[in-house]
């Protein structure tokens, strides 16, 4: 097992190397020039060129890449062209809200979806199963931003239970933190909840027809244990896969929710940076997202191996 994990971790290095080259080239080869954005509407060509020189953007592409690679390998993600703040600091300022939202969303989705999907799968055709199907259709169909506005109207403006926007750090108390994160979590989590619940239901339903389930029942195992210990456990691999995919999808979902609830997260940081062509920030955040994505895949792969000893790559 250890050798398997080590092999998988080594494979991360070339993946990240390719990601860093692609990110650098994509940005530099796409149209747009931060010097023009900084200089503003009425700047003359000379002023723009002087800004370009000051930022090192007049250098050949290879020189720019080598400079960036050298600073990045020394652990420095560079400095924002616009704010003059280190990219690492900008990301650190934004990590807590995004991480909180992503974790809370996944915890909410998994804690609700897996039991719900399991019960629905074990009692296929029941009212609970049909209700879950209806909720699934709604959950998939309603765009997150529409749901977000509705949540704000009801829970913030009408009931006054939660603020409309913003984020409060957990360091300022769990209750204030919960108040700012609750609505965004439910808004973002609904789609993931129904996705995981549907997969769980389908997987459990498939397992319930297997021979080993019949054998377990014949041996007199109580139905609850048949479902949780036998059916659910064997249905775990597809559920784990969809959770992994869900985490990757969260990255795009978080950007929308951060905008609707005005949460100062990493998603908004990168969108703003793209609009301004703030190269160091874009590179830093995409590298971070890529690393997270690779890490999640690694964790899922290791999870497969742990859940099913036959799995080896």
């Amino acid at each position, binding site marked *: 097992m250890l050798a398997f994990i080590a092999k998988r971790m080594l494979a991360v290095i070339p993946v990240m190397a390719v990601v860093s080259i692609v990110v650098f080239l994509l940005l530099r080869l796409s149209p747009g020039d931060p010097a023009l954005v900084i200089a503003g509407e009425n700047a003359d060509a000379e002023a723009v060129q002087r800004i370009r020189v000051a930022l090192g953007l007049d250098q050949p592409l290879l020189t720019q890449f080598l400079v960036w690679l050298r600073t990045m390998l020394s652990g420095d993600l560079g400095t924002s062209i616009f704010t003059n703040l280190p990219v690492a600091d900008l990301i650190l300022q934004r990590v807590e809200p995004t991480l909180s939202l992503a974790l809370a969303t996944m915890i909410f989705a998994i804690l609700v979806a897996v039991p719900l999907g399991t019960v629905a799968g074990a009692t296929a055709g029941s009212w609970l199963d049909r209700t879950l199907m209806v909720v699934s259709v709604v959950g998939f169909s309603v765009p997150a931003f529409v749901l977000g506005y509705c949540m704000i109207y009801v829970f913030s403006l009408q009931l006054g239970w939660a603020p409309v926007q913003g984020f409060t750090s957990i360091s300022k108390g769990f*209750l204030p933190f919960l108040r700012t994160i609750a609505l965004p979590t439910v808004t973002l989590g609904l789609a993931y909840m129904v996705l995981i619940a549907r997969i769980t239901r389908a997987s459990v339903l498939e397992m319930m027809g297997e021979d080993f389930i019949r054998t377990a029942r014949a041996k007199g195992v109580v139905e609850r244990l048949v479902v949780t210990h036998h059916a659910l456990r064997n249905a775990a691999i597809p559920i784990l896969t969809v959770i992994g995919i869900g985490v990757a999808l969260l990255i795009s979902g978080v950007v929308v929710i951060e905008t609707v609830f005005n949460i100062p997260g990493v998603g908004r940081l990168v969108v703003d940076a793209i609009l301004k062509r703030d190269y160091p920030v874009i590179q830093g955040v995409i590298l971070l997202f890529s690393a997270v994505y690779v890490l999640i895949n690694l964790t899922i792969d290791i999870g497969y191996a742990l859940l099913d000893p036959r799995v080896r790559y």
Partner: protein
Amino acid sequence: MLSHVKGIRRTLLASAFLLAGLGTAVAGPTLRFVPHADLQALDPMGSTADIVKMHGFMIYDTLYGLDANFVPQPQMVKTMTPSDDRKTYRFTLRDGLKWHDGQPVTAEDCVASLKRWAARDAAGQLMNRVLAEMKVVDDKTFELIFKEPYGLVLESLSKVASNIPFMMPKRVAETDPFKEIQDYTGSGPYRFVRKDWVPGNKVVYEKFAGYVPRSEPASAFAGGKVAKLDRVEWLIIRDQQTALSALLGGEIDLWENPSLDLLPVLKTAPGIATSVINQTGKQAQLYFNHVIPPFDNPKARQAMFWLTKQKAYLQAINGNPEFYRTCASFFICGTPMETEAGLEALKAPDPEKAKALFKEAGWDFSKPIVVLDPTDETIAHPATVVTVQAMRDIGLKVDVQAMDWATMLKRRNSREPTSNGGWNILHSYTGGQVVSTPVWSIAFSGACEKGLFGWPCDQTLEDLRLKWALVDGVEAKKAVAAEVSKRAFETGHHVPLGQWTSYVAHSAKVSGLIATQDVPVFWNLGKAD
């Protein structure tokens, strides 16, 4: 069982009240403001963006300020004495001026600040052409000595179009004008709290207790800048619906740029008021690439004037006649230089005449004209749509190329033919102050490749701009502005597409909003508990 359910209900209700209580917006001397954009840079010499200008007015002070009647009034200056030949201007600073670090403001600081500003700003560069020397006389006195009488001294020092001559400590002002400053010490009524700054989310200012305001009442950018708030927080909320909810929920106090379709909601919302702060507004323009066909020919450029129906543009850009006005003037209407000289075409558009002028220019109607369309931009994009339709209506073939704004900024620098990434027409807009005179920016430049994108090349226009700067007195300047206007039409410099203003929405607790000719300011602004 029933009592158990009631118990649960009571607990839930109690929790809800507790949560609601914790959500109450903080009242008192903190004002929460949603600006139109994120503060993308902190150096007011490094950017011409309005948001950077607003930041500048928060923390820096100016030697002169423009009052509501467009008259420069002394701000940091106590007395100004011009020499008899009007070549030397002696300025003495007010008593009690201090930087945010407690050090006194000196004449040396002001001279260093003016030098840095003049290296970046169009009006500063113009002043440099006739300036012989900036001389420090003593701690509080300095002189500007000119080679010949210069008619724009106080106007330049009080200009509201970026870049604005904000005063900085000498150690900061000595930074290379093309590099960002790292020290944000000012002498304005508020100071920047850098530790609380979260780019893209929040900018924080605190009252500067050491600021000594003038005794005169506040008038636009002049008069007494009294800081009545202990703290001002700018919250960057991108989404209009979220900002609306935050205002209705009492989480913000002042919102700079609500869209016009929200006006009916805001006008009827209890405890909410709306006001127009920027009395001058903004102007949209159509720009030509002067170096490639068909717009290398002035007749083709003039044709676009005859094709321009300003009302159609304004309806697309703004849509509410209460907030927009047609204006057949290069210099934004409502400012002293407003003139219709030479612009009959804008008053009575004539598409047939436009068509005839294109033919006179020898243009082949089967060839495409490339129009750049920044689809993410809420002014330039609708303006593009109107232009394209008008061109197609007279039989022109148009190639509309969609892109984002940042890409357009890059593309507009291409002097190549359209077959190789070049362009013919693009649209943009500016704050009214930028186009209130011929010289505050390069908007009226005729300096070929050294000037404005599109590269208008006209020495006569350049001479007229300098003449406007040198003549003294409003009436004399108006006469030269009319000459500039006529010349700009003859050469088809660019087409003004009309102007509009916008409104701010605020809690009824907010008082003391000052009308300006440009961005909102925060002195005199108060908030009831």
